[in-house]
């Protein structure tokens, strides 16, 4: 049973950042803007927020600091994503252009700035956020050890974001309008919806979430930030597509990938996997191969938002 709890707890560390960022990507793409800048935005979000923690940790600590850092990360991501929005919405440019540029810019900027400020590029932080057991909730049998021990508040933030995303996309006016812009912006425009504004909103939400995702990625897995999120932005993109641009499926995809990753990296501590004559490198490949296989089976009916990637031009027919 212990090992089961352990697997679930570890899975969270992989799945939650992927989930948050992929959901961010969903908002952008369902508004019609492809956002391959997720990786770069994650780097920026993680960079400023970890820096924030680095400077503030003498004055405060614990969950308050982390929540403030989450705000900083989101704010940074949102602002940074405006560049993407401007290029792909106002300038009607190919959306891979600014995405690629942002991905390139972010790590270089993070390294450059960190060195300017503190001479070393790693930004150190002290982890005062770890929760070994949530009071009361952690004591519930099964559920407690599963969800409320050895965790970070960011896990709940992630889950909260997922629930909110589902509600916003499917049950609010904004969500309805956002979806219409991603599928048929001319239709949206003809009923008086400002496609540009909605798309800006979509991209900025994706930026906010990707920024938060960057922080959520770093906090549980390292003691410093070294200008990289190890390709998780691209993986989040994959999770988004795997999840067929739908909240519930994205949640599934993120956790599927997270659990595969957990098996792949923690197999040596998992009894039933430990004995198998499978090498390290094969284990590393498994999550990706499994994803490929599942995709092959499940993609026949997959349909991206129809207007995704196409700049909206009022005049065009």
């Amino acid at each position, binding site marked *: 049973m212990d090992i089961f709890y352990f697997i679930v707890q570890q899975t969270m560390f992989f799945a939650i950042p992927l989930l948050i960022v992929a959901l961010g990507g969903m908002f952008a793409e369902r508004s019609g803007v492809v956002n391959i800048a997720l990786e770069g935005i994650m780097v920026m979000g993680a960079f400023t927020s970890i820096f924030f923690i680095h400077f503030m940790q003498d004055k405060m600590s614990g969950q308050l600091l982390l929540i403030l850092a989450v705000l900083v990360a989101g704010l940074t991501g949102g602002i940074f994503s405006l560049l993407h929005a401007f290029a792909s919405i106002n300038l009607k440019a190919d959306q891979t252009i600014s995405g690629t540029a942002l991905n390139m810019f972010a790590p270089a900027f993070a390294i450059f700035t960190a060195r300017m400020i503190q001479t070393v590029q790693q930004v150190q932080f002290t982890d005062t956020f770890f929760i070994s057991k949530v009071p009361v909730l952690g004591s519930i049998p099964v559920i407690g050890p599963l969800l409320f021990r050895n965790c970070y508040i960011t896990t709940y933030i992630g889950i909260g974001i997922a629930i909110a995303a589902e509600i916003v996309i499917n*049950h*609010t006016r904004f969500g309805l309008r956002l979806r*219409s812009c991603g*599928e*048929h912006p001319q239709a*949206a*425009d*003809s009923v008086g*919806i400002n496609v540009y504004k909605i798309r800006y909103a979509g991209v900025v939400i994706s930026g906010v979430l990707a920024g938060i995702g960057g922080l959520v990625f770093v906090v549980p897995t390292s003691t410093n930030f070294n200008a990289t999120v190890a390709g998780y932005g691209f993986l989040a993109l994959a999770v988004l597509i795997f999840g067929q641009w739908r909240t519930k499926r994205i949640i599934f995809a993120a956790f599927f990938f997270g659990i595969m990753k957990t098996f792949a990296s923690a197999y040596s501590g998992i009894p039933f996997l430990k004995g198998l004559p499978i090498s390290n490198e094969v284990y590393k490949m498994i999550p990706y191969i499994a994803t490929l296989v599942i995709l092959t089976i499940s993609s026949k009916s997959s349909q991206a938002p129809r207007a995704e990637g196409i700049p909206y031009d009022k005049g065009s027919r």
Partner: protein
Amino acid sequence: MEYVIEMNNITKEFGNFKALDDVTFKVKKGEVHALLGENGAGKSTLMSVLFGLYQAEKGEIKINGEAVKINNPNDANALSIGMVHQHFKLVHNFTVLESIVLGKETIKRGFLKMDDARKKVMDLSNRYNLRIDPDAYISDITVGMQQRVEILKMLYRDNDMLIFDEPTAVLTPQEIEELMKIMKHLVDEGKSIIFISHKLNEIKEVANRCSVLRKGKYIGTVDVETTSKEEMSEMMVGRKINFHLDKIEVKPGETVLEVKNLTIRSKLSKKDVVNNVSFKARKGEILCVAGIDGNGQSELVYGITGLMPINNGQIILNGEDITKKSIRKRSVAGMSHIPEDRHKHGLVLDYNLQQNAVLQTYFEPRFQNHGFIKFGAVRQYAQKLIGQYDIRSGQGEDSIVRDMSGGNQQKVIIARELDRNPEVVVAVQPTRGLDVGATEYIHKQLIAQRDAGKAVLLVSLELDEVMDVSDRIVVMYEGEIVADLNPKEITVQELGLYMAGSKRSVNNEKEA
């Protein structure tokens, strides 16, 4: 306050192209006002200006006598103007209800609250007899229902001035009739309607007055009752149009295309959308497949041309069994195809006119040499087609097809498909959305093909076209052929009965 809508001296430019040049257009309260003009005359553009999708460079708009600025559809909406667009603006994976309320949602604390909306929509639906299924997805409903959704969108917004941009181009005769009734009903309730159509019969039937545009310029407004169709069309194109098609008698020759027991099963519904269909198309004959939209005509054509796999049956072209042949092989064997959906199938919209002109022939020796394209030959060929088929566009053979008007896009396809000197022409709604001039031209081209001894398989939803152009008519109903008729021996009314499934003269012999 005589006019509800006054558009004075409107000028609209796209780049340096004047789509509207000093156009004046006035609509009275409670009338159906037709707007007539060739393809590309600027009708849709004028309406888009009125609806706030485009801003005019010059001119003023008065609504109910007051000068207004309409910067976006919201402004139009606020002024009680609604529009059914030429190309429907519906989101394919929204439900009917969602589509109607989009942009004017009822909400409670930010959350959608559909119940009120549903009630209002259903009330309207009942009141105007606009039958819809509020929970069906747009992608699953017929074009006719989509149109009703579009109309309900306007009514839901309590609009008084309604613009219908070519609403009938995609409808079946029955649906058109229904729409005419609805329009009259709406006008009776005091609403004003602008009605764009290329079909003079419809204008005659429903409109009070008619304004004519030609090449972006305002020509005049006439009273429909006192003006003949001929007069109106002359105003429109600047010359006399011959409504009577001169067709010489041609004796059909041997069979070119034979379809035997063709069956196609839908992947989604698992129904036989084409059910054991057999017919022969002969040389020197225009065989028309008539029927109400959605009775399997599209699938039949997809099956014949190879765009869709068939489940059973045989297709024989000039004695050769092509059932299993690729699209390319069929095309090379002499099958031309004027597709139903010109944007999806007929054209590579981002290619220029030249490139589209050789879409079916680029691999022929006249256009390539060892895999290398002969650019000079392609250009010359495109120029030839442009001249021959009067294709109009900004930059001639270098125009990107996406930027061309719908009518001219269609002409590119027609030119390409007919110029290949095919054995059989499969034409699906070749004149959809085209003005009378262009329609006349295309009909003449089809007849010329027939006169030259080709077989023409024409799929059309328009009864006039069916009756005028074809030499023989087969009627499809629910995937089956229910009648094989001679147009000279039946009336339109009779044909309508076959199409509606209330009469049949051919039995579906499974064994045959």
